[in-house]
């Protein structure tokens, strides 16, 4: 649906040139929710604005739905932009217009007849559950309601692509969840391709199919969200994952008590991750780690005791993902055998050490 080919953006100024985006290649598929995560100043804002040419790239090509955006200008570019909806962190509603009039805005721009606009706007307000608020002004709405108006407005012209510029960053966690649920819903219902930029791993985890991590104008890594989340390669990515999935030793096990190698009578502290990557074959046939009773197996097989210290089962978009921090109590051999077994069934594990 969207291809970026060697896209670059450099800001030239007397004080020096800033390379906001270095040679970037990206392919976003039809109907997916693609997340671009990065800290502020990483270049994600520039990247998303290159897609609808709000920022004109200084090099490379951008294709949206087969059309080369970078070759367009003037009226042709404006026409092409009408197929790309956009929502914003600060909503960017027109304060002088009511909810209804705000949603009508892009349709007025396209010169649709008034009665047609009215029908379409009513449909959209129903979709975002704001049909009872149509005569309100933006100042009378909550943040979440404002973003719903923004979404309705962005969808008004039946775009194929929706660009989301930090759409949930100004909202509280609860409202964020409801906006993300709405985005997921319209993605499914309308088969709309969504590209979102964010600095919140929560958002990526909740709705993205694929994700790219950006830093200093470079894409560090890119892949399925499940893969990037459960097996991050770059330090920045690991940092992002840690913001939502931080495994800490309970305070009881202070660093000085944890030894790196086995000593007689020690208990093994290990963190287990149960994966069910939606793209992996073992998930499709139901043999994924997340579905395996590995803990009870090692207890029965090797006669160890397992004590659960902490754990959680979470969902990455719709795929289950669990972590369990356990201590394994038994002799040296039993512990070694247990670890070997866990390895054989592909449970991802991280040995944190041994305690007395």
């Amino acid at each position, binding site marked *: 649906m969207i291809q970026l080919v060697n896209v670059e953006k450099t800001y030239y100024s007397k004080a020096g040139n800033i390379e906001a985006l270095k040679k970037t290649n990206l392919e976003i598929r039809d109907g997916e929710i693609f997340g671009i995560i990065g800290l502020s100043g990483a270049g994600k804002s520039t990247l998303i604005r290159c897609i609808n040419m709000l920022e004109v790239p200084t090099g490379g090509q951008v294709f949206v739905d087969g059309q080369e955006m970078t070759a367009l200008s003037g009226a042709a570019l*404006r026409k092409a932009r009408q197929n790309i909806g956009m929502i914003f962190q*600060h909503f960017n509603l027109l304060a*002088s217009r009511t909810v209804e009039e705000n949603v009508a805005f892009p349709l007025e*721009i396209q010169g649709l007849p008034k009665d047609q606009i009215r029908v379409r706007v009513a449909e959209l307000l129903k979709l975002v559950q704001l049909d009872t608020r149509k005569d309100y002004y933006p*100042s009378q709405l909550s943040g979440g309601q404002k973003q719903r108006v923004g979404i309705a407005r962005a969808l008004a012209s039946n775009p194929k692509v929706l660009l989301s510029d930090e759409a949930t960053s100004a909202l509280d966690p609860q409202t964020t969840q409801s906006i993300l649920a709405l985005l997921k819903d319209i993605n499914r219902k309308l088969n709309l391709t969504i590209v979102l930029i964010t600095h919140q791993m929560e958002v990526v985890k909740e709705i993205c199919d694929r994700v790219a991590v950006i830093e200093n104008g470079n894409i560090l890594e890119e892949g399925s969200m499940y893969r990037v989340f459960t097996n991050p390669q770059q330090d920045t990515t690991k940092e992002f994952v840690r913001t939502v999935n931080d495994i800490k030793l309970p305070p009881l096990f202070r660093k000085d008590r944890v030894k790196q190698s086995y000593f007689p009578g020690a208990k093994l502290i290990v963190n287990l991750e149960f994966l069910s990557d939606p793209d992996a074959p073992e998930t499709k046939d139901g043999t994924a780690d997340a579905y395996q009773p590995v803990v009870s197996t090692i207890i029965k097989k090797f006669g160890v005791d397992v004590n659960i210290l902490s754990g959680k089962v979470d969902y990455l978009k719709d795929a289950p993902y669990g972590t369990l921090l356990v201590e394994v109590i038994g002799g040296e051999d039993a512990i070694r055998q247990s670890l070997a077994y866990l390895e054989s069934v592909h449970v991802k594990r991280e040995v944190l050490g041994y305690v007395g």
Partner: protein
Amino acid sequence: MSDNLMELLAASLGETLYMVVVAIAIACLLGIPLGIILTITRKDHILPNAPVHNILGAIVNAIRSVPFIILMVAIIPFTRLVVGSSIGTTAAIVPLTITCAPFVARIIESSMLEIDPGVIEMAQSMGASPWQIIWKVMLPESLHSIFLGITLALISLIGASAMAGALGGGGLGDLAIRYGYQRFQTDVMVATVIVLIVLVQGVQSIGNTVSRKLNKNKIS
């Protein structure tokens, strides 16, 4: 005398209103487009154009730096060309308009710069043309602020019109000078000042009310 005073006041008030209303109307006609051009040709705005912006800006600044009384005398030939005479109430409208139009332009510009750039970016992302951005975004979004600014311009015009009176322009200023000052009729002077105060108060409160009505930003 009192009846006479009332008549004089009513006639002068009429002249003042005539000068000011016609002048502000023409000044808006000139100043609003000028202000819009000054805004959109700024760098980072929708149609950046440094030469146009700088030249118009320089002209606006030049006119605004000339004291009104000097401007009025300086453009006498032009005034005569436009209205056929350089003396009288109608003639006073010409310098009043010329002094006011650049002021209106700056008011429009500063009102429009208050609009969140994100809103303009939104309109661009929806495929709006510069013309649509001006009509559907910039003007409606800044209208309440523009109204307040034009109120300000109107009040400064009332002040300037009193000065125009000194050069045979008629109006309340003329009345105050001829009767109040030159004939030592303190009652006329006081009455004129009271009328001016009431007029300015009235204009300001109408301006405030309309602007408040237009401003949908506040929860009402």
